[in-house]
Each structure stands twice: as structure tokens, then as C-alpha cells.
């Protein structure tokens, strides 16, 4: 046996030696399927602590944090009928301005994020997602003028001249414009927010929304002095973006964030509920496990 092993190790050895070697298979743990292994046995004792330890902290913490954030959401699309009924061709000056009052109940500290929110808007439609040209977006100027991807159709060219950036995504860039004004208690005296501490976020190009209901960051109010105090505010919108025809809704959202991000009730509550259910299941299993154990 030891001979066999030595021959095996001696890789540079002569061929004749190995030919005499018996055909007896290698005695390695792998070949003989005797690898050291851990064979966990599923018992109440081994499983339950695991379910138990995962929960209490998450339960308390995450529920807390995710419910804590403040946000303020207002739908401004309702007023469209009173101001305008037509669609506006893109790029033209605003055809109408709509006005909407809303109330902030608690102080919102900077940074405050302003979002527009659309519903029933299928940005995740396959053809919509596809309708752009990455090469064009990345490319030099000369390239832009000569070619547009076939996927961009019908927004690939006007006549013979290519459109850049081409495609439905670029074509449907959100172009409503918002202004907020602080109003007095009576709602008469309104002051515009300072424009210099509002940052225009870089629009990451490919970031379409995943769902038909989505919001996207519009502006950041970042300056320390710009906290929004409780009170009535007025939202002025240069109305360009038509959504009513396909049953869409447009919202304006102001929100703050914490370490976990914006307010996310679902996350918090799900953790709480899952934790609760686990507790019940655990107790149930413990009971039947005990009962079975006693019966044995």
C-alpha cells in the first residue's frame, strides 16, 4: 500500500513502475466519499434560536426609523381642466400655469428633496426602455449628427436629420417647472423660496423607473437656513407635461431622509409583522416538539 502511494506521489517516476501498480483505487477521502462533513440535523433546538435572534432588534429599530421621516405629497394635476385642456408640444413655452396650495405640518430640515411623482406612467415598457442609443449618448459630437440607433424609431430623425439624443426616453423628458411659495396664515402673503440653494440633480440618463408609479428627484433644497417651517405653501407649476390622456397622475413631493433613506412604512411594518409571525411559529413548533419528545 505504501508503495502504491509513493509511486503516485512520484510523478516523474518511470512508467514501468506504475504499470505494475495494482488497480486498487486511491484511498483518498474524496474518492472514497469520506470527506469530513458537518451533517446538521434539523431539530427544534438548532432551528429555533436562529429564528429568535433575527428578530427583536430589527423589529424595534427598522420600524422606528422608517416611519420617522417626514414627507409631504400633493397632487397638482387635478387643476388642469380649469386652466388648459390641450397638450403642449415639447420645447414650447408653458401654455399654462397652475397653482396649488399645500400645508407642511412639521418643520422639515434640509436637505429637503423635491420630487415629481407620476402614476400610471409606463416608463418600464420594453419599447420605451429600449428606445435610446447608448453609443450615441457616449459618443463624440460628430458621431451624433450622423447616426441614430434603429431602436430610437420613431424619434430617430426628423426628415433626414438625426435627433440627438434620440429615442422615446429623451423625447419624454419631464418638463413641468415648479415653484413653491410660503404663504401667510391667511394664504395671501406668499414668499418665493430662494433659488440659489436649490440644486438641480444630475439626471442619470438610463434610470427609468421600475414601476408605473414612481417618483424622481426634481430638486434638492440644501442650504442650512432653508428649513421649511410648518405652514401653508403654494405650488406654482408651469404645466407642460400631459398625463391626463392616459389616466396618469402627477404629484409634487417634498421629503427628507435619514440613514435609511426616505420614509418607508412598508419596510418597517413588514419587519414588524414578520417578526411577530416568527414568534408565533416558533412557539408552536416548540410545543409540538416538546409533545413529541415526551411521547418518545
Amino acid at each position, binding site marked *: 500500500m505504501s508503495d502504491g502511494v509513493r509511486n503516485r506521489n512520484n510523478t516523474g517516476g518511470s512508467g514501468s513502475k506504475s504499470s505494475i501498480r495494482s488497480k486498487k483505487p486511491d484511498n483518498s477521502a474524496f474518492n472514497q466519499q469520506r470527506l469530513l462533513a458537518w451533517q446538521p440535523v434539523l431539530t427544534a433546538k438548532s432551528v429555533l434560536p436562529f429564528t429568535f435572534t433575527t428578530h427583536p432588534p430589527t423589529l424595534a429599530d427598522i420600524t422606528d426609523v422608517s416611519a420617522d421621516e417626514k414627507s409631504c405629497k400633493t397632487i397638482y394635476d387635478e387643476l388642469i381642466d380649469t386652466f388648459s385642456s390641450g397638450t403642449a408640444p415639447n420645447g414650447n413655452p408653458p401654455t399654462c400655469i397652475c397653482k396649488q396650495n399645500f400645508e407642511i405640518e412639521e418643520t422639515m430640515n434640509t436637505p429637503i428633496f423635491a420630487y415629481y411623482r407620476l402614476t400610471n406612467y*409606463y416608463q418600464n415598457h420594453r419599447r420605451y426602455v429600449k428606445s435610446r442609443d447608448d453609443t450615441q449618448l457616449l459618443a463624440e459630437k460628430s458621431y451624433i449628427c450622423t447616426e441614430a440607433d434603429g431602436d430610437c424609431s420613431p424619434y430617430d430623425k426628423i426628415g433626414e436629420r438625426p435627433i440627438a439624443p434620440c429615442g422615446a426616453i429623451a423625447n419624454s423628458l419631464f418638463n413641468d417647472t415648479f415653484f413653491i411659495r410660503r404663504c401667510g396664515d391667511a394664504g395671501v402673503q406668499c414668499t418665493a423660496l430662494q433659488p440659489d440653494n436649490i440644486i438641480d440633480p444630475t439626471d442619470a440618463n438610463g434610470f427609468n423607473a421600475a414601476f408605473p408609479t414612481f417618483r424622481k428627484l426634481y430638486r434638492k433644497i440644501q442650504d442650512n437656513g432653508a428649513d421649511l417651517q410648518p405652514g401653508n405653501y403654494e405650488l406654482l407649476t408651469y404645466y407642460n407635461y400631459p398625463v391626463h390622456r392616459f389616466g396618469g397622475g402627477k404629484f409634487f413631493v417634498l421629503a427628507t431622509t435619514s440613514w435609511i433613506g426616505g420614509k418607508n412604512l*412598508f419596510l418597517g411594518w413588514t419587519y414588524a409583522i414578520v417578526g411577530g409571525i416568527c414568534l408565533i411559529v416558533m412557539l408552536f413548533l416548540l410545543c409540538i416538539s416538546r409533545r413529541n419528545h415526551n411521547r418518545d
Partner: protein
Amino acid sequence: MPENAMSSFLFKLLKGHKGKESTETQRTIYANARCGNKHENFKHAHNKIRTSKYTIISYLPINLYEQFTRLANAYFAILIILQCIPVISSLEPITTIIPLVIVLGITAVKDGLDDLNRHRSDRSVNNRIVEVLDPTNMTEENLLTKEKWMNIRTGDIIKIKQDESVTADVLLLSTSDPHHLAYIETAELDGETNLKVRNAIQATGNLMDPETDPDGLSCYKLAAFDGKILCEPPNNRLDHFVGTLSWRNDSGRQEKRFPLSNDNILLRGTTMRNVDWAFGVVIFAGPDTKLMQNAGKTYFKRTSVDNFLNRLVVYIGGGLIMLAVVSMVGHIIFEMYHGDHFQAFLPWEFIDECERKTNMTQDPCEKGIPELISGSLIFWSYIIVLNTLVPISLYVSVEIIRLGQSYFINWDRQMYSPLKDQCAEARKTTLNEELGQVQYIFSDKTGTLTQNIMQFKMCSISGLVYGNQSEPCDFDTFNPRWYDHEFTFNDNRLLAALSQKHQKEKEFFTLLALNHTVMPEYKDDGNIVYQAQSPDEGALVKAARCFGFVFRSRSPDTITIYDATQDQNIIFELLQILDFDNVRKRMSVIVRKIEPDGTKGKIMLYCKGADMTVMERLRETTDEDLDVIEQTKVHLDEFSAEGLRTLCLAYREIDEEWFDKWNQKFTDAACSIDNREEKLCASYEEIEQQMILLGATAVEDKLQEDVPATIANLGRAGIKLWVLTGDKLETAINIGYSCNLLTDDMLDVFIVDGESSLEVKRELLRNFETLCQKCHPDNDYGLVITGHALGHALEPDVEHDLLKVALKCKAVICCRVTPLQKAKVVQLVKRTQAAVTLAIGDGANDVSMIKEAHIGVGISGEEGTQAVLASDYSIAQFKYLERLLLVHGRWSYFRMCRFLDYFFYKNFAFTLIHFWFAFLCGFSAANVYDQWMITIYNVFFTSFPPLCLGLLDKDVNDKMCILNPSLYRLGQAQKLFNLRIFLYSVLRAVITSLILFFVPMCIFMEATGNEKWGMTDNDSDGMTFGRQAFAFLVATCLVVIVNLQVALDTAYWTLINHFFIWGSILLYFALHFFMYSNGVYALFPWMFPFVGVGRFVIDKPVFWLTLLLTIIIYVIPVLAFRLYKSITKPTDAEKIREQRYKQKRRKQKKPISYISRRGGSQRPGTQRPGSSYAFSHQRGFADLIMSGRMTSKRRRSRSTINHLARAGLSLPSSPKQTTVTFQEPQESDANHIRGERLVE
């Protein structure tokens, strides 16, 4: 099967087969027609054989064709085509091409390597050399030319030398034997190791003269031989040949016709023995030979799991179409009610023409047309998006797992036989899990269950048992010259008795030395080797030799033995042999001792036979007689209780006058024309009377190691064993008992041996009634059926009855079956029962059944290699079957099922998310994931852990598998993977995908990015999560959960499992962060559109919290459910594991109830099967011996003469040259003559 027809057509086309149809009704062969214009010969196949599948040119097309006939591969090929159509292409073709190429590549390489081996073996056979008489190429000195086997054609006259294998099927023309005999060994062909004799017809035999031309060189006459042979077309009947030879031989100018039969034919695959050379004319070559015709088509064996998988793939295909239809309808509705109005941002593709035509007039374009067009395209798009429901890497993964499992079988040291230096080998690597589902084993007997070694174990001589002592006999001093060193006998009393010249003991061994049909063969060192036609007989003669009664030689009318106790040769005059037959079950010789001075002694009749037949004919006059009979009966019971084969021996003195009278009658009977048989029998009866019982012999048919224990354990595993043997009824029953197959617990052992189909049917129905009357699970029955009856039982209207009975019996033994019948029995069970069958055997006669059964196991033994070559697995001994099935089979099945269960689960979970997403993306066939994720999900992220599962997992270890054979039953019942399990795993996948989709969705819908800690660059602060972040989140959750699932499924955690499970998750993250990095995007912007996603989400707690939440929501219920099940309804394996776990905890080693590993149940003598005169030979030998044909003169035996002369033997006078034709017994092909012959 149009598919088969198609593929065979393609094969022919590519291989360049001649389109010759086998409509040949008669074959005409012109001998020596190489140069002639007899074109008839050229139509016949050449002697080239081919078992390989591909040539270099045809390899790729055929292999690809074969692969694409696999449903799954064809499916993916079609998908790729669909993906190349831009309007419906919802996924890049690359997502399918890459995995498919990998999958096809692996399979193609494997197939290619397999075929390379076949090419090698073909080439070595085809290039063997044989000498041929080639009229076109002969010289004066040398008529013979050397030719490769593959160049031999029909009509060629070839010369076969001793110990060479026969090149093709040839008609024997002439041999070196003066009587034109040739001996062949047919082990390769039918598994029988005994020699068979073939003869050339007299006319052609005389073409050579072995007397003057001992080396067979001057074959002028043969070279001029121009006979024409008319014979049957190629067929697969090994024992049948009909033909005629028309030839104008020297003597007459007229053409004469000679009938030809199987006796004149040497078949390819046989080996020639005992003659120096033989000439023959080739009649069937290459593929036409009976060997190749018998080889049959190698069916591609599929396992039941394979078939089930194929069915599942079809079901899944159906499900896929359903989902696509639902999506299509959804899409149409969506576009009608929403998409239509959404056109400001996303115009329809197919609107142009319609709009243009109507041109916005009041008559609007027909409502619904664009939606319908779009919808019908979306149908295909969804087929593409959801294509991963059918797992592309399924088949290749299954193959890899099986390959790995096969290696584990090859590597197993516990299936290594040090004796033969051989380990188990999985020759086909596609059947492993079927080893875990076997329900019927069909086993050969000789060489498989038994070693085919007979040993004289015990004897009872006039009421005294010998051989039950412990110390071995000292033959060295007793009989140094002749005793066989391998022979042992444990009783010195017997030697003492012989030394003291006890009359009975001497008589006993004299009988053994005289009463047989054995032929002695002298080796060069002067030793005798006995050529017995049955090993029993050999064992008895050998025993007699060791005890000092050495059978030296025989002539037609004398037998010479050497008596060691007196140290002299004794010659007996052989007066008559009353041959053995199946009815008489006994054999007698009538001899007269010739004293050295020439006086003749008394006439003695020595008889040996089955106890029943001998006991009936004993003299019971004296008390001593009765005493001996009584004692012997007791001993016989004891012997057969130990599974020994017994024979009774008796003798009688015959009055000379009486004998003369009887002999006259006997001669008359032998010469009578009508009722010869009956008359002979009557005269036999007359003389075999009033015999005095000498005693009984007990011969052990040595079983292979551990056979009874193995059979018992396999039985406990719910496997039924059917023994199919060529042996006789009694032998078979005896072996059945000795290897635990038949037991005394059995209520009844039915014996079916009817001669007509009606009779057989009646017997079966009667047995079935018995079965039904006492039908109780505890009542075991056995069934023994003879080959003849089996032939009838296999007829279509009887087979049903056979099955009814056989399936209820615990053990079935079929005896005297032909190879074809073996296959038919297997086929019957396979066809009618939804059960996995396994055939195990070692000889060429088992090949057909090995090929027929779901699994064929060959025992790599001495009997040629045919069985092993045809087998799927080869093991060195029967006992390894236990480990092969209970351990490797069970593990393989367990692993494969766990793997498949998981594999479908992971693909469903992965794919169904697309479907849920469809409801939120307007059924637009948008995919959730990054396309790279889709491409490599199956190849990298989730492939290795399940492979580890399929290769390494085990629920219980090997010892437990063998100790608890009931664990095997879950494979037979297909408990681990069936439609229910599959649906359950689909359900689990549906739930998983719902969780995976909707939990992240609800969270991400409104989630925004958080502030960055301590960083000034907070670009992403407050940003919402887009489609790509969502895709990444879902993909991450999926990969983690799916890998955790495999972790939960793994029962046996080796380091390798750890490495691959955690490694897969790490690889996922690493690869994604790499693919989503700016650098890669800058290089290939169009390939990696998800740039920046990784960087975006990595510091978002929402992302990680969602991941954690999703995992918890999935894993906790699964764990809880499993725990619940294992508490309330534990599986057998779990129970065993828990027991062990507890035992370990208690640190006290309870003895586990070990099954007795010792074989040979000691059964009480109540129901023993009776002694068996177990000679497997047929009658007819006595004729041969007495006629002298077998003992005729031989040139080669000169040295033998010298030996005998030196030994001082007076040789009997030459027998008259005989003209008795060699008559073959009607029943079979069994003229098993080991033919060294004595000299004059």
C-alpha cells in the same frame, strides 16, 4: 418512430453504407472465387466490423444532429432563431447562445472521446491477421498469404490454427484431425466453457492429408476446390444452420450435393482448440456473422428519470405557452385601454400604415388591429423572456453528475476485489440513479452466484460420515504421486480406513474411478488433467484420484486405474455403460476386473445416481442393508441441509451367465428400430436391481463469496431476484436453496415443467389458485420453471398467467433457458411492469439479457469478456452488487432527485419574476434582470452548488445504507422525484418568485436614497431607485435565496459545499460590481448598460435591509415547515440519523443489530429438495466412448504413449475403425467433449 428512421437514414448517408436491403432469401457462395467472375460473392458484406459511430467527417454533423434531436437542445436552437428577429427579440440572442454552446460543447467532447475508444477496439480487431488461400497471390512454395481480417470475403478459404479465434463464420473443409474433427470453445459466444466438436464432411476432409502433411502446408487440392455452397441467409441462430455443398469432386465427374448442418460450421467468436489447424470457407463475414447478428442493436438506454424529465420538459413547454398566451391577452388589453392613450410618449410601431391610409379622417382605422399585431408578437417575445423555465443546463448538469457518480463507483475501494485485482467499473455513465430504483434482478447462476467449482466435501460410506472433522487429510504420505495439491478433505479416518483396506471404502472409490465419462489428458510433466463434461463429475473423479484410485486411461472396452493402496495398475474390462438420462437420473457401468495374470474377475455393476432413483433399486434383504440405507438417508438429509449436491452410490455383483443373457437382450434392444428407447430402458431396469448401497457423496457447488447474505439483503431492500440458468432443474433448485433464494419458510415452491403450452397454462393457473387461496403477505412462494415450459409460457396468451404467478413469488428460478429466453423474460417484465430491471451475468450467454434489461451488470470473470463488454456496469463479484445498489445506487438516486428538485425550483423562481413583472410593465415583455444576469445565472451563479449537491450529498452513510436495506425502497417507489414533488417545487418557486418580486417592489416603489455618512459627495442622496437598481436588488435576493435553498437542501456539508455555496454568492457580487463599474462600461458601453448601479446601491441600507427581509420571509417558513415535517412525519433516513445523533450524544454505543453476514442458512431437513444428480451432461456419451470415436488414434499423442509405456501400462488393443456417425443428441448443441484421447 420517424425520428429513428430519420436518424438511421442519416447514418447510412454519412457512413456511406451500401443501400443493400437484407432481403436475401438464400445465399450462394462460390469457394475460392477471389479472381473469378462469380460476382455473387461480392454482394456479401466484407469481414470488416464497425461499432463506432462517427468518422472524422461525420463526427460534427452526426453529433450535432443527435444533440439537436434532444428536445431541450432543439428548443433552445429555435429560441436563438426567435431571438434574432428584432421585433420580438426581448432578449439578446447571446443570452441563449453562450449557455447553449457551453452545453453542446461539453457533450460533444464527451461523445467524441467515447467514440475514439470504439474506433481503437474496432481497428485492433479488423487488423488481426489470418492466413488465406488466395489464388491470385500464391506461389509454388507458399500457397497461403497473410491477410487482415477485414479483407476477408465470403468464399475465401482460410486456415485457422489452434487457439486462434475464428475469423468469420466458416464451413469446415478439412482439419489436422484424421477424422476431420475440430474442437471449439464457445465461451465468447454462448458462455459455455465446454468444448464442442465440429466435423468436416468426409469428401472435403480428404482434400488434406494430415498424416503426410502435419503442418497443413500442401493445400493444392484445397486451392482447386471450387464448390458452390447454397445456404440460409445471415441470421442470429447460433445452433442452427442449413445448407448444401455442390461440388464435382475427384472421384466422380458428376456434381454431387452434400447436406450441411451446424456441425460443419465454425462461428466467429469461437476459439479453436485441440487441432493444429483447420481449413474452412467463409460463408458469413463481418456484420453477417452470427456473432454480430446476435450482438443486436445496442439500444440507447434511458433511465426512468430521463423519461420523466422529457415529459416534464414537455409539460413545462405547455406551461410556457400558457403563460405567453396570458401575457398576450394582457398585452392586447393593455394596449387597447392604456397604450393607445400613451402614444404621446410611446407611439405604436405598427400604426404607420393604418394612420397613413385613413389619414386622420373621420373613418378611423379599424380598432384593434395594431393591438392584435403587437399582441401576437408579444406572444413570441414572452416565449423568449420566459424561456429559462426550461433549464438549459439541465441535461449537461445531469450528465456531469452522472459522470461524477460513475467515478465514485470506479474509485470505491470496497468494491475492489484484491483477488482479481479489479474494481467496479461504470461502463455507461448515464444510468446511475436507476441503480437506486431496481426492483427485479435477473441473475445468471454459473460464474455469477456460483464459482463453477465443485468440491468433494463429504461422503457417507456404509453408514459412516466422513469429512466432518477439522484436521485436513495428509495426502502427502498417503498418495504422493497422484494427489492434487488443491484438494483438501477434512477427515484422516478415511485415509486410515483405506490404508487398512476396508472393503466398502475401497469399493466406494473404485466406483468413483470407474463410473463416469471423463477423459484423461496427460500434461508434459506426466500429470493427468481430467476433462470432464460437468464439473461435478470431475470433482468426483478427482476425489477418487486423491484417495488413491487414480483413473489413468480408457479405451472403448477398458478402463485402467491405479490403486495407490496396492501400488499397482488395475485394468477393468468395460462391458457396458448404462448412460445417464434425465428420466433415469442415474448412470451405471458394468465392468470386470482383469487380474495381472489375465484371469478375469467378477462382473460388477457400479451405479451412481440421484437418491430417489437409487434407493428404489436397493437390496433390502439383510439387516445390514437396511441399517446402511437408514443411516445414509440421515446423512443425505444432513448433506443437502448444508446445500451440498448429493449422489448415491451402489454396486452389484452379476452372475456371468445372467449377464450374457442380459447383454444379448440389451444388444437386441440397442439395434431395434422401433421403440428403441423404451426397450433400452426396460433392459436397464432389469439389471439395475438388487444393488447394495455403498454410500453417498456430497459435492459442494462453491458459491461466490457472500452470495446468500447479499441475496438476503437485497431481498430485504424489496428487490426480487430471478435466477435464469442454463442448468438442470435439480441443480437450479439446489442452488436456489444454498444461496438463500428458496427458503424453507416458503409455503410452496411451484415447479412448472409442462411440455405444451396448454399444459403450462394449466399448471400456472393451478399455482395461481394456490397462491390466491393462501394469499397473505407473510406467505412466500417460489417458482421454478424449466426452459421448455418457459418457451410456452412466453407465448402471448400464456405470458399473462406466467406473470401473475411469478410476480407473486418471492423467488423465481428459470432453468435450462437459452440466451434468447433470458432476454425474453427480462423483456416481459420490462414491458409489463413499470419497474426497473437489472440483469447480471458473466458469460456471453448473458449478453442478450444484459442488453435487454434497464441495467446490465457484467461480472468480470474468467468466462470471456463478452458480458462485461455489453454491460453497463462491471463488478468483480456478485457480492459487490449489494454495495453497487444499496449504497451507490441509492446515493445516486437520492442525489439526482435532490438535484432535479432543486434545479427546477431555481429556474422557476428565476423566470416567474418576469411574469409578475409583466403585470406592471403593460405585458411588454420587458425583462426584470440585466441580460448578463440572464446569460450566466444558470452557468455560474447557481450551477456549482447544485452540482455539489448532486455529487456529494448523502442523507445517511454507506454503512447505514447496507444495514437498513429498507432505505432502498424509496427509490423503487420513486418517492424522491415524481410529479407531486415537481409540482410542489413549482409551487415553492411560485411563492419564492412572488416574495422576490413583490417585497422589493413595495419597498422600492417609494424608497429614496439616504444621506451619506461623512461624505461630502452626496450625489445620490434623496435619489429614488430606478429600474436597474430594482433589477439588481431582485437578482441579488434571488441568487442569495436560491443558494441558501441549496444550503438548506444539503445534508452533508463538506468543505467543497461551503466553498461553492458561499463562493457562488461572492462571485455574484464580485462579478456584478465589476460589470457595473465605469471602466467596463467605457470599454463596451452597449454591453453593460447597468453602469453605476452597483456603486449606487452599495451604500443604501434600504437595499441591504430589503435583501435581509426577503431572505427572512423566505427562509423562516421553509425552515419551520421542514422542522414541522421532521417532527411529525420523519423519513426513514431522518429517523436513522436521529438515532445515531442520540447515540453519539449519549456516548454509549448500542450494538446495532447486525445482519448475519454468514451465508448458507441451516435449514431443517423437512423439506429438502431431494438429492440431485446434477450432471449437466446429456446422454449419448456412453455411445461415443464405446464406439471408440472419442478414443481414436491421434498423431499428436505420441508423448502420451510414451508416458503410459513408461508407467508400464499394457495398452488395450486398437479398436476397430468405426463408421458410427457422430450423432448429436436431439435436445441441444451440447456435445461437450473435452477431447484429449487415448491412443492405441
